[in-house]
């Protein structure tokens, strides 16, 4: 039973990270109907930036807490900046192109960014400092739920709440939803659609950065390739919940987290990634609209 609880909580943590990254996919898809293939790389760049900044600050003798805060903030800023730039270069010129074009461009962007980091930094795995302190009050439970897991879970919860508030109640949020539903009408209402799309990329990217920091400090190492696998998994989570749906992405993240956690815990850990991919393939075949997604009627 304890093992079950441990796996359940492990899945929850894992799932919340997937959910954070999945939100970026789902928001972008909702607004421009594009699978932002480079989203995983944005998160990878966030993690690298944090590592670099943290190392530099560490060498200059900054205190631990200030390192955590500064590195996180800078990582989020940089991820957002990359997300913004990627949209401007690889997607914006293709707004009216046939569907395959932006997808190929996105894959190209993803490959480009991976190799950019590979060349400019290293192909080796780098140790990532644990940004999360051990809480004493968690000690009695640490064998089933670590401090790190608690922090991950709470951070995710806060980030999601913030996002929900932005989307639901702010002017920008309403404009984002409106643009997702009918872009031309949003323009006719006086919305600068380009700005809204950029904002979506920026928000999605900063969420990815948060996810990236959490996962990197949890696993303890990073390399240029982490974005690819986690990216696809997060995408799976987004599709699972119903791409375009924000609560769907969260739900999908949890389901995927649990699937992986239980499957590796009870079946085999060799095939961890296979379970995720198999889930992706199955969900797309049997319920492409996802759990909370709506199937759209095609206009003829």
């Amino acid at each position: 039973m304890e093992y079950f609880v441990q796996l359940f909580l492990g899945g929850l943590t894992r799932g919340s990270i997937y959910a954070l990254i999945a939100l970026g996919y789902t928001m972008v898809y909702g607004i421009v109907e594009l699978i932002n293939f480079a989203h995983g790389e944005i998160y990878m760049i966030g993690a690298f930036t944090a590592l670099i900044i943290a190392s530099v600050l560490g060498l200059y003798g900054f205190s631990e807490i200030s390192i955590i805060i500064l590195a996180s903030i800078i990582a989020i800023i940089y991820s957002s900046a990359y997300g913004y730039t990627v949209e401007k270069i690889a997607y914006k010129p293709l707004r009216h192109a046939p569907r395959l074009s932006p997808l190929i461009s996105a894959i190209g962007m993803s490959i480009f960014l991976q190799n950019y980091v590979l060349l400019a930094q290293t192909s080796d795995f780098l140790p990532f400092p644990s940004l999360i302190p051990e809480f004493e009050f968690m000690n009695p439970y640490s064998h089933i739920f670590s401090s790190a897991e608690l922090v991950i879970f709470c951070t995710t919860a806060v980030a999601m709440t913030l996002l929900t508030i932005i989307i639901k109640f702010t002017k920008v949020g309403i404009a984002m939803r409106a643009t997702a539903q009918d872009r031309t009408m949003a323009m006719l209402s006086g919305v600068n659609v380009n700005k809204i799309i950029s904002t979506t990329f920026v928000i999605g990217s900063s969420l990815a950065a948060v996810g990236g920091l959490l996962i990197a400090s949890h696993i303890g190492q990073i390399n240029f390739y982490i974005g690819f696998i986690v990216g696809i998994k997060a995408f799976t989570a987004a599709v699972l919940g119903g791409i375009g749906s924000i609560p769907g992405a969260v739900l999908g993240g949890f389901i995927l987290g649990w699937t992986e956690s239980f499957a590796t815990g009870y079946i085999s850990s060799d095939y961890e990634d296979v379970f995720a991919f198999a889930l992706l393939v199955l969900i797309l075949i049997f319920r492409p609209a996802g759990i909370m997604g709506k199937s759209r009627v095609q206009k003829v």
Partner: protein
Amino acid sequence: MIKFEEIKKSLFVSLWFMFLTFPIMVIHVNPIDKIVNWRWDNLLFVGCGSFILSFFWRYFINRKKSGLRQSSPVISPLSNIMARLRNDPKLFRTLIAVLAFIAVAFPFTFSTYQVTIMTTVLLYIMLGLGLNIVVGLAGLLDLGYVAFYAVGAYSYALLNYHFGLSFWIALPVGAILGAFFGILLGFPVLRLRGDYLAIVTLGFGEIIRLILENWNDFSFGPSGISNISRPSLFGIEFSLKSSSIFLYFIIIILVLLTIFVVNRLQHSRIGRAWVALREDEIACQAMGIDKVKTKLAAFALGATWAGMAGVIFAAKTTFINPASFTFHESALILSIVVLGGMGSIPGVILGALILILMPEYLRAFSDYRMLLFGAIMVLMMVFRPQGIISDVRRTYELDNKGASG
């Protein structure tokens, strides 16, 4: 005369990219020795590079926009040459003769090393042409193409290892197994929309690779399979040098076969159905075309070619492991198709020549090749989605014999 406004814009772009690339390009931390390496020269490169490139970017974007407006197609010189070749059978025949001569003479004039490189190029031409059926003609973005390639390679390697099966038997077996897996995967997924299809095929490709990596009893895991037999001719074994020449000719023949088949299919009833499907799925169905069957045919045929190429790959390298079948391989094949021109046979050939030869001969490029592939995919989509040589539909004349051309 470049306007001040333009310079200001470029300056801004340059500053932005200097900011953007600062931590990754400039700072290099060695966490073990605790040393920070500040690479300020990189900042200068980025700054100057993005300053210049931004002029090109805006120039081409504007040109593209005005091109769209006036709807005057921007025909590249290469397409002009292609058009001339099509219209002048004599010139065309001369060119074919020259190419044939070069192809035959090549292995006898150049070193084994050069022959091996050329064999690789030919292998990718085959793969590219196979994927071209799926992506270029039928418009199905298959990101897991490498899975079928792996199926072919492993079927030869395993059959050879366990039963000592020869290359010549494995070649059709690999093709059939490729087709089989193509249908197996294609059947459930082909109902999906374009971008979902891409992701499912990607997931499928990764599943195959992960299984090969982890199922040690079956595939010998990451250590792979070595000592795979090279092809023989009526039981005659070759020396290393003549063997590579032999393989070179085998693959030349297979590439010719591929070109022959794709060319015939392209302008047949089924080929037109593929293109129609790519152009407009609903109208295509309204013409009485069975969407699923047609897609499946394209998918299976593409997989057949990947299967065959896999067998050849195993025979060529005599050693395979899962590392040869990563997503990057799929991406490389896709870049060949995209760069050359989707749907165009000469385009794919040119694409393979450029993308395989460039990293081989320009050592400077080999480190940057994946970076380059990524950039090519983005830039081609933004500026020239039809590729270097765009696909041109065949023209028909009415005469007593019916079709010509």
